[in-house]
């Protein structure tokens, strides 16, 4: 019943255009392959192995982000200190580094020319062409997403709740475990999904560090280069399916969070 001006209609038009621009290619992709081709693809051992590797490596990178990133996210959410802005900037840095450059940079410290690389080699850790290498670059690109999501979650917990908990006798660690974490677990899960989703979609950094073993995006690229568009589409459909499941989970989580507010 509210009066709607021309400006309102302009925004609706733009919304429709953006919607079409994003959905049209994806819809076309998801409906491009006949069901038979999709079913056949699932029996292709190479495809299954690639998707499994993508899932495992992304999961591992999310786990590392959880261990390294959670305390740091808390630090950023709660404390003010000199150089905090710099630390925040560094955490965000991987987002803007071109993807192949990430791979090149990681290889730069992993090779025999670098002290760290020699130590790693002696410890039997290989980066180039290994699952380890894939996990390292996926962690590199996924970490900022985890830390930023979880930091926002921690910030949303009132520091007064922590203050009350401590005045009631709980130490800082007890307060974190009993108050802060239970109140922000949704953000932690959302952060894990965000960084996994970012990692599973990575191609440029992975293809530099490890063409083999093949992750799903690399496999799709290979099929496209080797056999053309038609043959890459069924694999792409399955990978997008996996990503959409992750994405839907993330949306469901954040949606419920807003409602509870």
């Amino acid at each position, binding site marked *: 019943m509210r009066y709607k001006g021309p400006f309102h209609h302009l925004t609706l038009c733009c919304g429709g255009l953006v919607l079409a621009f994003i959905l049209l290619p994806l819809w076309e992709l998801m409906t491009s392959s006949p069901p038979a081709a999709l079913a056949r693809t699932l029996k292709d051992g190479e495809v299954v192995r690639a998707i499994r590797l993508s899932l495992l490596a992304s999961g591992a990178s999310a786990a590392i982000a959880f261990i390294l990133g959670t305390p740091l996210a808390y630090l950023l959410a709660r404390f003010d200190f000199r150089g905090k802005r710099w630390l925040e900037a560094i955490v965000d840095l991987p987002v803007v580094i071109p993807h192949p450059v990430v791979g090149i940079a990681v290889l730069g410290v992993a090779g025999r020319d670098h002290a760290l690389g020699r130590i790693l080699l002696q410890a039997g850790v290989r980066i180039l062409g290994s699952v380890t290498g894939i996990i390292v670059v996926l962690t590199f690109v996924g970490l900022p997403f985890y830390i930023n999501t979880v930091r926002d979650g921690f910030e949303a917990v009132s520091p007064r709740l922590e203050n009350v908990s401590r005045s*009631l006798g709980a130490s800082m660690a007890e307060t974190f475990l009993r108050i802060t974490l239970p109140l922000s677990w949704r953000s932690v899960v959302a952060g894990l999904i965000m960084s996994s989703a970012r990692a599973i979609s990575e191609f440029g950094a992975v293809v530099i560090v490890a063409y083999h073993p093949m992750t799903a995006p690399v496999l799709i690229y290979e099929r496209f280069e080797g056999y053309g568009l038609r043959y890459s589409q069924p694999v792409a459909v399955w990978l997008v399916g996996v990503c959409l499941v992750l994405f839907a989970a993330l949306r469901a989580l954040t949606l419920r969070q807003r409602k509870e507010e």
Partner: protein
Amino acid sequence: MIRLDNLSLSVSSFPMGPLCLTVGEGDFFVLMGPTGAGKTLLLEAIAGLVPVADGRIFIGARDVTRLPPERREVGIVYQDQSLFPHLTVRENIRYGLRFKNRTGPGTEALLDRLVEELRIGHLLERRPLHLSGGERQRVALVRALAVQPSLLLLDEPLSALDPAFREEMGGLLRRIRNSTGATFFMVTHDFTEALALGNRGAVMNRGRLEQVGEVRDIFLRPASPFVARFVGMKNLFRARFQGPHALVRNLRMRLPRPQGRESGKVAFRPEHVEIWPESARAPHPNLFSGTIAECLDHGFTCRLTVSVDSVRLTAHLPAREAHRMGLCAGRRVTVAVPPEAIHVI
């Protein structure tokens, strides 16, 4: 109970000058001041939640300056109650027990007594989200008192409540203070709250304490024009002194005692100003004839502005009395200012 020894804080560009303050055992101490004066910051410093830049904080006999909050034995109740939203009321009020090693029948009896006294027995299994403001405030009080702190810090405990609940909660605070014997340290920006609840208090302005003392004393004898304005001493005038008299512009007022100084300020509360019919003779020396410039009805009280020559005096009187005298804007009246009500700053 609390002693601040040249305490200074520096949190995010808010410098808080060196403060000295002593709060006695069992006091109901009220820290007053306008919004943004730094009251909550000082309260959090006492609780150990804000880093101290310089100076010392003593609670009881202990120097707690470097102790973490969990070892200060200080309870805190915030304006927004800060109940743990993921715990039930019962879990909230029992939260502190495990850390303070308070177990056994004594604690249970105390808890039962508090639950009954603050009437939250029917709420124990509920989540804080669905409680009313007053209920949340009572739960927060029980939670803080359950660990038997010797000192309870209250951050504007009444200002988030609707006016109708404020008085009730105020009465509750006084009863609780009397029954537990703990020292209360309350922050408020409303001086009527301070007067109703506290025995001692201080007025804070821009990170400094302007006055410390008995609340009644601050109310009647403010130490500075800022405090005078804060506690509602609407009549505050620059004056020249001549022996036992003060000259406000060309109004000559008898003072309670002669002043040595040449000039200064005089202040008196609007509720001490008496209004008499134009022809009446009041039993005071300070009688002035004036015209009512404005008459505002606030229900119980009536606020009058009376122009006496070029001076505007403010008077509060019971609405009943104002109606009986038929006061309204434009009427000429006699204003009396009892000399003993005049305070010289």
